């Protein structure tokens, strides 16, 4: 009996160290990216506000609870009180959360309205999800291509050392000009997929027979990686999205190199 008691005390300690330790142990990313668009920065800020709000509430609520656990335990010889309701205090802790929620929903509403505003765009890219790759079509610039996983099978099957961008690399990257408002039209050829690039804060479902809209304006050149975010079958985990944002001149050059002559360009994405 004594041994079990001691064991339990140790387990309690271990719990605390595991929780605090696990957050610090690994040097890998543990938070959302602020991204490279104005919207993604707003989203990140809102995420952090919500997070810290939760932390503050947690400290207050659990603080009271743990104080109570410490101070009002029977082994200290306390006699229990008998109160069991108080309309005032119950009204207070109904109203305060309500007010906090309203405060939280105001910036959220503002950002959401911005996300839905696709007007004044500079260019359109139509994205079509396939099992299991993406097809991109630059509507105005007449470029279109498929983009699929470029990681070799030998890496996936552990026969070879995994590369730095394991599972997040594609054969043809989506090239976009920096600072331009790009409108995405998203649909699917077969099942539902979702096109997601965390750095652009864009995630939208690709639904067969329906067209969805989203937009992004990247502020910095760079390579931004994402993945399909809706279960779409066997290789759902193997259809990454890679976006390369380049200066406008470089983008124009890229279009010239990759545009197909008008006669060969079909507006329709032709399924293979």
């Amino acid at each position: 009996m004594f041994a079990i008691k001691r064991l339990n005390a140790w387990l309690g300690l271990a719990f605390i160290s595991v929780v605090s330790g696990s957050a610090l142990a690994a040097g890998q990313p543990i938070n959302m990216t602020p991204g490279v668009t104005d919207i993604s920065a707003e989203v990140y800020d809102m995420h952090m506000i919500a997070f810290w709000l939760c932390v503050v509430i947690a400290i207050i609520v659990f603080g009271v609870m743990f104080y109570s656990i410490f101070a009002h335990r029977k082994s200290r010889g306390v006699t229990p009180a008998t109160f069991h309701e108080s309309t005032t205090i119950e009204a207070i802790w109904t109203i305060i959360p309500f007010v906090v929620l309203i405060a939280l929903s105001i910036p959220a509403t503002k950002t959401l309205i911005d996300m839905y505003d696709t007007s004044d765009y500079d260019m359109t890219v139509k994205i079509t999800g396939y099992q299991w790759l993406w097809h991109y079509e630059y509507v105005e610039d007449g470029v279109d291509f498929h983009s699929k996983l470029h990681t070799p099978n030998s890496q996936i099957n552990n026969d070879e050392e995994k590369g730095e961008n394991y599972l997040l690399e594609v054969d043809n990257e989506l090239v976009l000009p920096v600072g331009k408002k790009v409108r995405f039209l998203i649909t699917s050829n077969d099942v539902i997929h979702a096109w997601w690039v965390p750095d652009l804060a864009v995630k939208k479902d690709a639904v067969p027979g329906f067209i969805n809209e989203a937009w992004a304006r990247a502020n910095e050149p760079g390579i931004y990686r994402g993945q399909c975010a809706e279960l779409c079958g066997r290789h759902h985990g193997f259809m990454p999205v890679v976006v390369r944002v380049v200066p406008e001149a470089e983008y124009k050059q890229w279009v010239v190199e990759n545009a197909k002559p008008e006669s060969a360009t079909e507006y329709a994405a032709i399924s293979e």
Partner: protein
Amino acid sequence: MSTVAAGDHHDHPESPYSIKRWLFTTNHKDIGTLYLWFAFIMFLIGGVMALVIRTELFQPGLQFVDPQFFNSMTTMHAIMMIFGVVMPAFTGLANWLIPMMIGAPDMALPRMNNWSFWILPFAFAMMLSTLFMDGGGPAGGWTLYPPLTLQTGDALPFVILSMHFMGLSSIMGAINVVATVLNMRAPGMTLMKMPLFVWTWLITAYLLIAVMPVLAGGITMLLTDKYFGTSFFNAAGGGDPVMFQHIFWFFGHPEVYILILPSFGVVSSIIPTFARKPLFGYASMVYATGAIAFLSFIVWAHHMFTVGMPLAGELFFMFATMLIAVPTGVKIFNWIATMWRGAMTFETPMLFALGFIVMFSIGGFSGLMLALAPVDFQYHDTYFVVAHFHYVLVPGSIFAIIAAVYYWLPKWCGNMYSEGLGKTHFWLSTIFVNLTFFPMHFVGLAGMPRRIPDYALQFSDYNMMATIGAFGFGLSQLLFLVLVIKAIRSGNKATSQVWEDAEGLEWTLPSPAPYHSFSTPPAIK
């Protein structure tokens, strides 16, 4: 006209341990026991599936299973845990406790009670058998979104039929609870005097009856779309695949409250006992439960923020979802106010109830974050969501069920469990459950989608942690099994009161509780 066995719930079992007793029993305690053991067995099977998932995710790269089988495991794990573990476990608790708590001799519809249990093993046998079929088991996620689900092979009709059976079973259980609570309360047991467990279950039963036909209709339409040429969810014929998601989540969101409301009832019973103080704000607890149930009907589309809804829709569902935090907060505050200035002791049920409050709140916090539609675009379908719903379901519902078992076990079997082992079980479970699910917040925020068998290298450390935690949590539950069996077979005899100062009619019965419980004081003139 010799003997007349008038009450139909009065079949006398031939012998206490025959198989016939368990097959034909109409006694609420037997059926409660069957439900609880069934739930535990399913918990082990569903747990093994979770371990298959975690094993594959231990390291990046494909190591053990085929991606299709992996998807099948995620799908089945969810269905098993929801319909096979949490719901039957709560129905089992309802069977055991509701009659004892309201002073009824048995459930109102004892024969239906028997059917509603015995449907389950068949339903799950059918579900599991699909793993051996051509094309494998269902692999489109438990949400069954078309068109992906329609790519399932021969398994589809079997899966849908088995889900119909699960739904049928829970509807029958719910009708039984409603009938019992409404009609069989002892004199003086008014609605506002019922223990909160009974209240939460009554509301849960109401939700179940309201939404189960929606699921039934939805999955039947999937079936006709695949085999009978209808186009409910097929755009080519004028249908809309997104409508299935609306149907599914119209069922699915109330369903998640079905999975948590009875836990609120359990915790509301345990905290006052070990704080030696009456529950704070009984009435507001009842109203909060009602409010949560009501809100659960108008928030479903928050599961589908990325699907492409009109702006007004997104805003409506965002506000409605955030509102849920208010009644949920009221509940947490009430529990803490119950503890405040009490005289607390920390027996195992109390530890699990305290663990519930803290960790369920963590799940609630991430839920509040998920409610913010623009931010949800970043969270949706990532491990952040996985962390969120596991926090409310594992250290939420499952901890509450375990707490309930510890709390009422002495009443059920007449023996005390080993307190030391119980506490060990608590600490091991708590450590490992956090080790499993806390890192999932990190990988989710860092960009790891859910339902993938392989992942990029920056997610590897936390996945490894989660896998270790999952194995630890799974093994800790075997300790629970040992402990329960030990308590049933031996252990110190429990008094009828069991816990000092526990309130409720069930504690006035002897331990173990007699086969038919209670007084329905008759009108004898």
